[in-house]
């Protein structure tokens, strides 16, 4: 018995030593991060960009697309710039599970002095959670999908001005475009809105719902999990005289399944309207509408991506290509100005000044003080044709 107690005591002592060491380590963490933040880095032949995206977990399909596009940019850049190559390091934020993963990734990037700028994170809630870690590391981070309006206002969800940027127009741009198209062009009077319970989806659904209601459209609001596959009960609730269903979702196969189940339930007369998250060949319900950046699928860069990825456009990830592009150009400029050495602060300064006359998204890229796209492009409206292609209609 005494032996057992002794063993337990030894284990307990070992655990307490380990815990206190870890605690000490984490207490010292900010110092290390600060050191990495302030360090002047020799640019050398390889410069590192972190990509924070959900690579596993329920939103992995989105994150993998973003990583693919960021890597695609790096590969194209590296072919022409052998002496200033870009290395991508990825961190898995597991969007939809717990924002703690995004914070861990942010800390790992912040404490890695080689990381000079970041692409991501994907979700608005992840941006909010990980801001202090990125700020602590003096890292600029550019999201290709976080669209919550308040992220860039400098006070509602915290202040990240000078650190956070995004290469997507926010919900305040997309929602009015969609709602006005429904009202003025499609002349819809009865609309059913289903969000997928994610921040992105709920923000857009709220925005569109408010404008439609203000204009006298009868709106019914519903919600279904992003992981749901059985839509039969929700479909049963959609009144037969509904003209359109707005589904601002992020997973095109889910929209495809929804469309098929809608048709199978005898409601094929109801037209679907999706958001930028659904601009993908995986969604091919003919007659449906979708809003997306004015990206052209026939653009040579986009076509080359599709070819390199077995025919998968993965268009939702394309803003991450532009985010990686901005990071790269900012690092390059900062390195040039610093004569081969730079700091993260210098890189952030260059991100803020960035001006791309054109991008694969179909609009120029420069940022407002808050980090939004300076002159937000209007979203294009597309209609899915019988062969599955997206035809611009507005």
């Amino acid at each position, binding site marked *: 018995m005494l032996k057992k107690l002794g063993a337990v005591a030894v284990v307990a002592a070992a655990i307490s030593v380990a815990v206190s060491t870890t605690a000490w380590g984490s207490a010292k963490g900010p110092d290390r991060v600060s050191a990495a933040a302030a360090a002047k880095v020799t640019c050398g032949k390889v410069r590192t960009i972190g990509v924070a995206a959900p*690579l*596993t*977990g*329920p939103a*992995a*399909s989105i*994150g*993998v697309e973003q990583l693919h596009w960021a890597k695609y940019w790096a590969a194209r850049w590296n072919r022409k710039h052998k002496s200033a190559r870009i290395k991508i390091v990825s961190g898995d934020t597991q969007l939809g599970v717990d924002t703690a993963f995004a914070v861990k990734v942010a800390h790992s990037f912040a404490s890695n002095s080689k990381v000079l700028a970041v692409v991501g994170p994907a979700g608005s809630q992840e941006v909010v959670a990980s801001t202090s870690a990125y700020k602590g590391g003096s890292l600029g981070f550019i999201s290709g999908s976080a669209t919550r309006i308040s992220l860039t206002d400098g006070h509602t969800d915290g202040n990240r001005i000078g650190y956070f940027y995004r290469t997507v127009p926010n919900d305040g741009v997309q929602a009015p475009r969609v709602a006005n198209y429904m009202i003025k062009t499609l002349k819809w009077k009865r609309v059913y809105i*289903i969000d997928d*319970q994610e921040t992105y989806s709920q923000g857009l659904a709220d925005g569109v719902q408010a404008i439609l209601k203000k204009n006298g459209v009868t709106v019914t609001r*519903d*919600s*279904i*999990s992003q*992981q*749901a*596959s*059985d*839509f*039969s*009960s*929700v479909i*049963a*609730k959609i009144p*037969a005289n509904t003209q359109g269903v707005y589904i601002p979702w992020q*997973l*095109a*196969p*889910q929209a*495809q*399944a929804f469309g*098929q*189940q809608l*048709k*199978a*339930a*005898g409601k*094929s007369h109801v037209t679907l309207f999706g958001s930028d998250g659904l601009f993908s060949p*995986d969604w091919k319900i003919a007659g449906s509408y979708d809003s997306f950046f004015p990206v052209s699928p026939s653009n040579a860069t986009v076509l080359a991506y599709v070819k390199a990825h077995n025919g*998968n456009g993965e268009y939702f990830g394309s803003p991450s290509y532009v985010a990686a592009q901005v990071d790269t150009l900012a690092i390059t400029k900062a390195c040039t100005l610093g004569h081969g050495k730079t700091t993260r602060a210098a890189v952030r300064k260059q991100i803020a000044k960035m001006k791309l006359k054109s991008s694969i998204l179909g609009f120029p890229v420069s940022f407002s003080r808050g980090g939004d796209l300076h002159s937000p492009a209007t979203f294009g409206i597309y209609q899915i044709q019988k062969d599955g292609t997206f035809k611009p209609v507005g």
Partner: protein
Amino acid sequence: MIATRQQRLGNFAGLGLVLVAWVLYAVYASPTQGWTFFLQLTVNGIILGSIYALIALGYSMVYGILKLLNFAHGDVYMIGSFIGFGVLSVLGGALSPAIPVVLLVLCMFAVAMIGSGVLGLVIERFAYRPLRNAPRIAPLISALGVAFFLENSALLLFGAQYRNYDGYDLISFNGIHIGGPTGVFVSYLGVIVISSSVALMVALVALVRWTRFGKAMRAVSFDREAAAMMGIDPDRVIATTFFVGSALAGAAGVMFGLVYSQIYHLIGFIAGLKGFTAAVVGGIGSIPGAMLGGLLVGMTESWAKGYLNGNVADLVVFGILIGFMLIRPTGLLGTPALQKV
């Protein structure tokens, strides 16, 4: 572990009262009134419940024979759905099948069932058999480990993208209208799922009741040591049970893909939990209980989505699980285990 006639009657009387009260509320008092809507949700729930029932059978069979909660079972179902998708893709896909559709669907079922069954055998052999005499927590942890292993293997092998079966394109968007064009609609695909599930369940009941293997299975379930002394090879019986239970999960995976189209590497997690809930509600260890539990869980989920909101469907389902655990932990058709003294 089978309930007495009186206990069953009591259970069913209680359940019947709850259901009648619910139907009356749903049809006459809820904001969304009407029989058609209620029946449509019920039909949708039966289709979903048929799939849960097949998953629940695997849980119940394994628990019945080993007293093990096989938490990897949901992921066997996921692998089954991927195998079915693989067969569909190899044979031309839903839009341009290379062989007659009936043959294609049969091939999908056959290969998925065999593949999942073999996976079940492998899991039993390497993850559970070595721990058969270990404390009960050990195989439980092993089961969770296998579940994560399968999920991440699928992520590695098939990627994170969702895959679409496009089952309606493959079979038909048409179906049966009950009560005219505005009445209750049951798609042919739904009919196929319900009838296939019933056929598989009947076959399982026949296997357990009227075959030598079934008798051996019941004997091992009752007393493994005594069964071994009577010349039954428990290892073989347990392995075969895993094969059968996993094959049923594989069939459920294909059915899910056909009806609900999209599959991905994490579909097994929630489906596994729903199957487990169904097994508990029905009475874990009881085959008819698993079927009944599956249907009840499916219908409850469908009603919750229809009358309440998609947000709360899982809350209701798992609330029922907690309720049963508190009020009647042995489920509808189970009985408390007798303690040997």
